[in-house]
Structure formats: C-alpha cells, structure tokens
C-alpha cells in the first residue's frame, strides 16, 4: 500500500473478462446497486440540478452581481484586489504551498531518523480532530491578551505587541492560513513519506557512484520522482480550500469587515442567514465550476492508473 498513485491498479480488461463470465447477474446488480444509486439520485443529483436552476432564477443576474457588484466576493476597487475569491487564491498559494513545502521537509527529515513514526504521528494528529476544535486551539494561540494568548506572550518577551491577529484585516488571513497549514501538513507528510520510501535505493546509489552530489540527488532524482504524489496532495488540498468552511466559521465568521470570507463561507452566509437563496445557489454553482478542472485531473489520473476504465 505504499504506492499512492496506483494503490489498486489492475490490468484493464481483467475484470471485464470475468465480468462477462457472471453476466447473468444483472438482476443481482440492481439489488446491490439500487439503494446507493437511489440515494445518490434523489439526495445528490436532483438537488444539484435544482441548485443550478435556482441560481438562474433571474437569468444571469446573480452571476453578474457576484462577479462585478459584490465587493464581498470580488472587488478590484483596491489594490491588491479583495473578496472571498481573492482569499481563496491566497489560500491555494500559501496553504497548499505551505503544506507541500513543510510536508516534504518533514518527510525528508523524518525518513532519516529512528523516531520517524513519533514525528509523523504528532504532525498527523490534527487530521483526526474536528476543524471546530482546531479553530478553538488557534483562537487560543492568537488571543489578544498576552496573559492568555501564547503568540502575544511570546511577542511580549520581545516587547512587541500585543496584536489582535484575528481582529486585524491585514493579519487575519495569515493567521487562518497558518492554522490551516498546521492542520493539514500531516496529510502531506504521510503521503510524501510513503512515496519517498518507495523510491528505489538502487537509483540513488547508482547516482552516487556516478559522482552526483547529494543536493543534485535531491533536486534531480527525489523531487521528480515525487512529482506525481506531490500533485495528488496538491489537488486534494485545493479541494479542501474550495470547500473551506468550518475553520472560517469557528475562527472569524468571515470577519473583520468580511475580510476573511471564502467562497464556501460566502455561500453559507448568503443562503442561510441572509435568505438570498438564489444568490447563494449561484455561489454554490461557482464552487462546482471551480472544482471541474480538479475533477478532470482526477479522472485522468484514475484512468492512467487504470483505476477506472
């Protein structure tokens, strides 16, 4: 199970050939599949279509407003631009980038010591806990009072601060992204570590015999060989970003002054407390549209791995 990329790859036609062998089982197939398909159709496909329809209730008005008249979603009136969409871009760059950078760093370091499993367990732990709890943990770290908040206590040692990290338009996204990276680095670490171990030692030995420096081995051999798992991690984290809701809800409620909203949080905020159901639906459709390239990437990957036909 160490190969992340194609965990269960099988020759493409094998199951098809056997499938023909049991072709008389179509009725059984219906019974096996029926409940799952029914649920998916009624409670996922149908509502998805309804949401798309709802978003076009006033023609394309909702989309025009979303992209041109809603400073909470996208605003070019300031430089740099602001809004939920821009925040999501920030998250993609710094959260995804941060997770991969630190994930790789920790994986490489951990692979070289005996207490590897201890380190990975510590780093991985936040994966198991609720974003709600994670949000509480970090609100505590960022708390403005220097007798309570760790970060401001540390600043206090250097006679700086205190800074209300989550109350500041200029700091709030940084604060949230750090909490997010803290929560997700473990995922990147575990996957990259598994792939790292899958790299054949012979290749590395051969390179070394040929006189390659260690840094060359890292950049020219290890990184290229990890490119696929890195892209898999990146794609998974990008999906996380687009669906990012809990942490924002718990830590800032999108504030101050709506400066930390994300797309997923905006959808919730517009649809539920504000009763702009059709507008919220349009934001949900935007989420889906943004996820489409990710979907295509994943399906291509599964296909090339022959995970699916």
């Amino acid at each position: 199970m160490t190969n992340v990329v194609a965990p269960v790859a099988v020759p493409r036609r094998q199951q098809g050939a056997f499938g023909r062998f049991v072709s008389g089982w179509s009725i059984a197939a219906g019974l096996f599949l029926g409940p799952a398909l029914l649920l998916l159709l009624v409670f996922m496909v149908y509502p998805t279509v309804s949401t798309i329809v709802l978003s076009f209730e006033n023609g394309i008005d909702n989309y025009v407003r979303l992209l041109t008249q809603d400073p909470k979603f996208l605003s070019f009136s300031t430089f740099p631009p602001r809004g939920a969409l821009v925040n999501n871009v920030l998250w993609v760059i710094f959260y995804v980038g941060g997770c991969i950078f630190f994930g790789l760093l920790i994986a490489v370091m951990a692979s070289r010591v005996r207490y590897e499993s201890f380190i990975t367990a510590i780093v991985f732990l936040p994966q198991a806990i609720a974003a709600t709890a994670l949000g509480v943990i970090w609100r505590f770290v960022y708390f403005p009072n220097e007798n309570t908040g760790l970060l401001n206590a540390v600043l206090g040692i250097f006679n700086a601060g205190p800074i209300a990290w989550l109350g500041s338009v200029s700091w709030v996204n940084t604060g949230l992204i750090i909490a997010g990276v803290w929560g997700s680095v473990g995922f990147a670490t575990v996957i990259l570590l598994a792939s790292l171990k899958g790299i054949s030692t012979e290749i590395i030995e051969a390179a070394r015999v040929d006189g390659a420096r260690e840094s060359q081995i890292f950049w020219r051999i290890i990184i290229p060989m990890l490119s696929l798992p890195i892209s898999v991690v990146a794609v998974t984290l990008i999906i996380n970003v687009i669906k990012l809701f809990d942490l924002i809800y718990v830590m800032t409620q999108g504030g101050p002054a709506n400066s930390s909203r994300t797309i997923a949080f905006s959808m919730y905020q517009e649809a539920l407390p504000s009763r702009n159901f059709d507008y919220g639906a349009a934001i949900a459709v935007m989420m889906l549209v943004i996820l489409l390239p990710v979907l295509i990437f994943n399906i291509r990957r599964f296909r090339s791995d022959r995970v699916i036909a």
Partner: protein
Amino acid sequence: MTALAEPVIEPPAKTPAEKILRFIRKTPIHIGLMAVAVFWLVPTLGLLITSFRPRSEIQSTGWWTVFTGNLQFTTQNYSDVIGAQNMLSAFINSLSITIPATIIPLILASLAAFAFAWVSFPFRDTIFLIIVSLLMVPIQMVLIPLSRLFGDIGIGGSFLGIWIVHTTFALPFGIFLLRNFFITLPRDLIEAARIDGASSWNIFRRVVVPLSVPAIASYGIFQFLWVWNDLLIALVFAPRTGQPMTVQVTTLLGTYASEWNLLAAAAFLIMVVPLIVFFSLQRYFVQGLLAGSVK
C-alpha cells in the same frame, strides 16, 4: 537544505563510534524535528493544560506558568461544560448522528462496490465514472434544495434527515475506495465459489466481505471521523434537540468567546473520541488515506 539532501536510505551503522558520528552529523535534522514536534504539540498542549486550570487562574495568568510552579488544577471546567453547557447531551447526539451515519454508508457502499467490481451489467464503467465524478460535488451544492425536499417529505430537522445527508455524501468515496479494493481480490476464489453454486449474495457475504475487512475498516474510520467532526451539515440538518458537539462548541464560542475554561474543556471533549480512534486504529487510517486521497 544540504543536510536534508543526504541519502534517503543509508547503510546501517557498524560500530558505536560510527553511530555517534552519524548522530552528530544529523544534529541539524534533530533540531529541525524537535522544532516540528514543539510547533505541533504546544498549541494543543496549551489548551489541554488550560482545560484543567481554575477559571480565576486562566484569567490572570498564562497556561505556561504551570511550568514555573503554578500548579493549580481542577476538573471543574469539565463538570461545568458537561452539566450547565449541555455537552453531555451533545456528546450523545454526536453518537446518535455518527454511528448510523457510519454503518449505513458502509453497508450500501460495500454492496454497490461489489456490483461494480464483480458483476457485469450495462454501462457499468460509465456509471462508475459518474459516481467518481460525484466525489467533487460540494455539500453547498445541495443545501437549499435538500432542506426544502426534507421539509416536503416530512423529515426536516430529524435524525433520519442528517443520516441521509451523511450517507449520500459518503457513498461516492466509499464505492470508489471499496470497489478498487474488491477488484484486487483473487479471481480464482470468487470463480470457485461461483462454480460451487454460491449465490452472488453469498459470495459477497462469505468471500468478499471477510477478505476486505482492512479496506472496510479504513473507510469506516474515515466516515466515522468525518461525521463526528462535521460542522456544516450539522448546522443545517441536525435536529434542534439533537445538536452535536461541534455545533454546541460554536454556540459556546458565540456566547463565551473569552471563557477559556469552558471552551478548552469543550474542545477537548470533541477531540477525545477521534483521538482514541486515531491512536487505536492509526494503521487503517493511514492506509485509507493513502489509498484514496481524493475526498
């Protein structure tokens, strides 16, 4: 970066002297990993310590003062949140939501995955592809119509409603993961059972499921943690008298944003079950993660 760029796998050290030398050579790595351990432990540790400190102490001194001899501890915070703040009933609600919302998708996804893996029927691969595509549908996409639909069929704000939402959104991942596992089972075994006249149900129950326990377990753990930790679905679909702990904690946050005695204890109550699951079943958890890093 040069220290890191050293060989990934090294030959074992032979003499004690060599071991010591190697340890020293790795000093930057040990320091780096120590920093990592500190950075990842301290925030959680701080909250954990706080959850056992008396309210008056929390309000006047930082949790780190316990290391300089300020050793006053209490379990009052936990009894406060469990009693006055309803965390006990929220805990039970979390269980009432999570257990069925784990078992039902486990069963349905196994059944469907079996059909995709070992039963031939028209458009099988196309349907599977569509289900894999559904992995991408965000929950936001269904919030509004599903609320209305639940209202129309009379299950709004009921446990049944929230079980259905969790189950439905768990199926694509489960079917994907389990189908990919089932397909790796030895073909001869299933063929033999078939020749012996076993029905498809018996093959599923007596051959496929017993051989797939690790995969089903990983999926089960994932789903359990996913539901237990969920906030969004619970905010929208949880029954009004059945709010799970995640929702209860956000309510506390809204009311007592700086009552860290309550917040810390409540946050740890949410974390207890996942941590137990994590530590006892870490192996399955990581396997599942590696097998299906898509959700």
